[in-house]
């Protein structure tokens, strides 16, 4: 099937070359970082994780979100989704690749990376995160590839694939739970030390993953003869709506606990993120308010049935969901946990240009893989459909 990625129209090749160019820029920026050290980023002694780890967290969510097409299809026998499960699975593959790359570019000492496996520490959540993410990627590659080959040959996929599919469903929940545990078990970082972290992660994942999938479905329909389907997109829209409402509800729960209890540690990070602390303004405040703004737009467009059911407006709602969750999780979550620092001081963070270029290179790599995988899917679907 791989050969199908080698035959495409001009637009396909144009996109790949464009992505390759960004990957090149990212790679050169990374070489610069590799020789100079992470000092070329905006990270500091106080904010020791930044944009990279934020993006890792966000894309673990996107990867987990793919399960929102797999679960209804296989556990609830919702047949309509059988047509697009492959899109969810391959989105997960591309996302996990991005996660891995974001970890790699964040490491201070890349040549020693294998120490995680040579000297594993089972009490470290990072160790488990590495395991669940890699296994999740493998599961999705194997499942996706086998189901797609079977579809191409016009046969039913083999029985053992079904076993893997059933494993992959709870596994999707596990990757984002374990990622939440990276943060939620750390003493002294009040913004992270909350039992609802994993639940919040999953709800935002199940909103942002399917939201991205809807946009991708609309693009696929536009550029190919394969139509992911009106009903499919509509059902996904409902899932995004529910998950996003839940996500905002969880945020309100956090706000209540912090501000009704009036415990300073619980309030400080929120105060910093949305207005600033100790007389410091906050470089993140405009972004956090933008996140809230996008959330309000998304809630209105997604809750009102008339707007949700119009695909063009649904697309706007999904874009708003992605923007809102991306700022909240890819940015505010990590930075907010580090401010104020353990001494109660504010030391701000803002990513540098090389840092953003490296991240762009990672995104481009992910979308390159996604493009190639989706191209194969589309070719198979067109071949079968014709």
């Amino acid at each position, binding site marked *: 099937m791989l050969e199908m990625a080698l035959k495409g129209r001009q637009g396909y090749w144009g996109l790949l070359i464009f992505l390759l160019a960004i990957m090149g820029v990212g790679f050169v920026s990374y070489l610069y970082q590799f020789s100079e050290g*992470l000092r070329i980023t905006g990270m500091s*002694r106080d904010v020791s994780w930044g944009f990279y780890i934020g993006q890792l967290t966000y894309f673990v969510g996107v990867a987990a979100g793919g399960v929102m097409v797999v679960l209804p299809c296989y556990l609830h026998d919702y047949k309509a989704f059988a047509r697009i499960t492959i899109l969810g699975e391959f989105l997960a593959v591309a996302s996990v690749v991005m996660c891995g790359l974001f970890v790699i570019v964040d*490491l*201070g*000492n890349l040549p020693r990376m294998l120490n995680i496996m040579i000297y594993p520490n089972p009490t*470290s959540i990072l160790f488990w995160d590495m395991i669940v993410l890699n296994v999740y990627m493998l599961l999705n590659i194997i499942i996706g590839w086998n189901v797609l080959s079977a579809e191409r040959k016009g046969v039913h996929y083999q029985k053992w694939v079904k076993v893997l599919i059933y494993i992959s469903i709870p596994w999707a929940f596990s990757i984002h739970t374990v990622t939440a545990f990276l943060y939620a078990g*750390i*003493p002294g970082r009040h913004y992270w030390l909350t039992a609802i972290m994993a639940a919040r992660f999953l709800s935002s994942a199940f909103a942002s993953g399917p939201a991205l999938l809807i946009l991708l479905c609309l693009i696929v329909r536009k550029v190919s003869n394969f139509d992911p389907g009106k009903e499919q997109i509509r059902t996904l829209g409902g899932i995004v709506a529910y998950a996003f409402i839940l996500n905002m509800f969880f945020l309100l729960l956090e706000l209540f606990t912090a501000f009704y209890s009036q415990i300073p540690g619980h309030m400080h990070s929120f105060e910093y993120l949305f207005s600033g602390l100790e007389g410091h303004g906050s470089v993140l405040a405009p972004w956090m308010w933008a996140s809230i703004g996008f959330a309000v737009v998304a809630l209105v467009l997604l809750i009102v049935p008339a707007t949700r059911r119009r695909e063009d407006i649904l697309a706007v709602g999904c874009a708003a969901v992605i923007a809102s969750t991306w700022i909240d999780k890819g940015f505010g979550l990590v930075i907010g946990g580090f401010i104020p620092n*353990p*001494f109660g001081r504010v030391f701000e963070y803002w990513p540098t240009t090389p840092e953003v270029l490296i991240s762009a290179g990672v995104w481009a790599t992910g979308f390159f893989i996604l493009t190639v995988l989706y191209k194969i899917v589309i070719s198979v679907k067109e071949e079968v459909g014709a």
Partner: protein
Amino acid sequence: MGLDRRKFLKIVGLSTLFGLGGKAAIDMFAPGELEASVETIPLTAGKRWAMVIDVHKIDETIIKKCVEACHREHNVPDLESKKEEIKWIWKEDYEHSFPGRHHEYVGEDVEHGSFLLLCNHCSNPPCCRVCPTKATWQREDGIVMMDQHRCIGCRFCMAACPFGARSFNWGDPRRVLEDKDLKELNPDYPTNRDYPTRSKGVVEKCTFCAERLAKGQLPACVEAANTVKKDALVFGDLDEPDSNVRAVLRNHYTIRRKPELGTNPNVFYIV
């Protein structure tokens, strides 16, 4: 016959006068006895090392001496940058040493008093729990140690430490040797040619001077403080009922930083 501690220290002290390393001197004065003797030196056989800092006894001079002694001993350069700052032991005011304890009517001497902060060598250290490679771990004597050969620079430990005790090498510390401004700031870097520097991309912090304890010497900061004022910093074994630290803790009211987090810090402050 092993060397007793007094004899050991005498040899080490004497030989320093003659510019010899401690090891070379021992080989010269008592060849072959070193290994057996080290075990008899109390400082090398602690079960739970701890430090008590008497805030009434320390002042700006002592604090400066401690910080300098430590950072010179361990080749910690001044990088003139808040962002990339590396520190093993440092000065902090009351409000920021003990966030949450502060109130507006606190006495002048406490409010403007200076504290000496360093790694707490917690008995239940979250940094070791999160390290994916065991590059930081707890030794049997309680010291939270760093293995610079193994650290991959993921900085999970920095996120996990509630005391801000860990520093990361955002760049190569040896750029001090090339950079004009930094060279001016650290004219004699590396200050201790018997101790390594670090490379870029690893985390570092106080090790309670594990390398000095092994030779029967007190941590550099304790030694420096005691040259000015006796017992300003007291270092010893908490596991030993008759130890100096236990006696000090019995006789004074002491506090620790953020005890509510359950990390069980082993640095105490007499306030």
